[in-house]
């Protein structure tokens, strides 16, 4: 998940954006936005998300919010079934918004767009997972109506 950190200047056309499916030519901007906000460059991860996925197009959604000036945000979701015993639902794996355009409705528009695609794919529930200390991101998802679900994530260090 992409954390939101302050950046200095707001794009002039941040309120006039469109949402569409991501294209190969968008990936470099996605990689840069993700790196700028998380501090980690994950080029191969993003290339894989768009380039080599064998998941049907109606089950995986990689959307971007664009202006004439470039990328303002992205979201990735995928319909998954029966993992962890969960009936089919839509998972949101990542969302990122240019921090200079926070509160301009870009994250909400991306969220609603991916929800609409999940509905068309027959999903009746969406789910995500995020770091407990990702307060801004958790606030965003809660502002969209998401609440704690029935699963708890557990982990263990293997060197114990």
């Amino acid at each position, binding site marked *: 998940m992409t954390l939101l950190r302050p950046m200095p200047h707001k794009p002039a056309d941040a309120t006039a954006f469109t949402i569409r499916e991501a294209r190969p030519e968008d990936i470099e901007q996605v990689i840069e936005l993700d790196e700028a906000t998380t501090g980690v460059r994950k080029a191969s991860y993003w290339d894989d998300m768009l380039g080599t996925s064998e998941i049907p197009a109606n089950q995986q959604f990689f959307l971007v919010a664009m202006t004439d000036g470039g990328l303002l945000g992205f979201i990735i979701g995928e319909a998954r079934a029966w993992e962890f015993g969960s009936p089919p639902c839509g998972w949101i794996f990542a969302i990122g918004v240019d921090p200079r355009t926070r509160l301009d409705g870009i994250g909400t528009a991306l969220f609603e767009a991916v929800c609409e695609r999940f509905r068309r794919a027959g999903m009746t529930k969406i789910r995500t997972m995020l770091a407990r200390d990702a307060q801004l991101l*958790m606030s965003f998802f809660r502002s969209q109506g998401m609440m704690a679900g029935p699963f708890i994530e557990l982990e263990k260090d293997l060197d114990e």
Partner: protein
Amino acid sequence: MKLQIATRHALFAILELASQPERQLSAAEIAEKYDISPNHLAKVLRVLGREGMVDAARGVGGGYRFVGNARRLTLLDIIAVFEPIGASAAANREVGNDTVEGAALAQVMDEIADTTRATLSSITVNTMLKIIGRTADAGH
């Protein structure tokens, strides 16, 4: 988890005032809805005023209004004014803390406290008003 009375009063007052930001409400009006002590609520409102969350207008037609940022102010911000939330169990000096069993128990209690803090810090007043709206729609 059970909140102290003053904390609940504060949450009710903030939610009531934030749901009608254009109106000024008296402590008595809010107290009547929630069936709570107006005197106790007035004390709580004075604390909220000192914290810059509400503003008081005196005189005829006076009352309180919400002056915080509903999209930024979280439940944790409000609760923390009145009581500690999610304090580390290991940091609290309690009987048995120095034993291995006490340390293990503190680890589990800290896990619960971390989740509590994460939940309360992620729910803004604005989001809480939406949850209230959905609860009302569901026919509570």
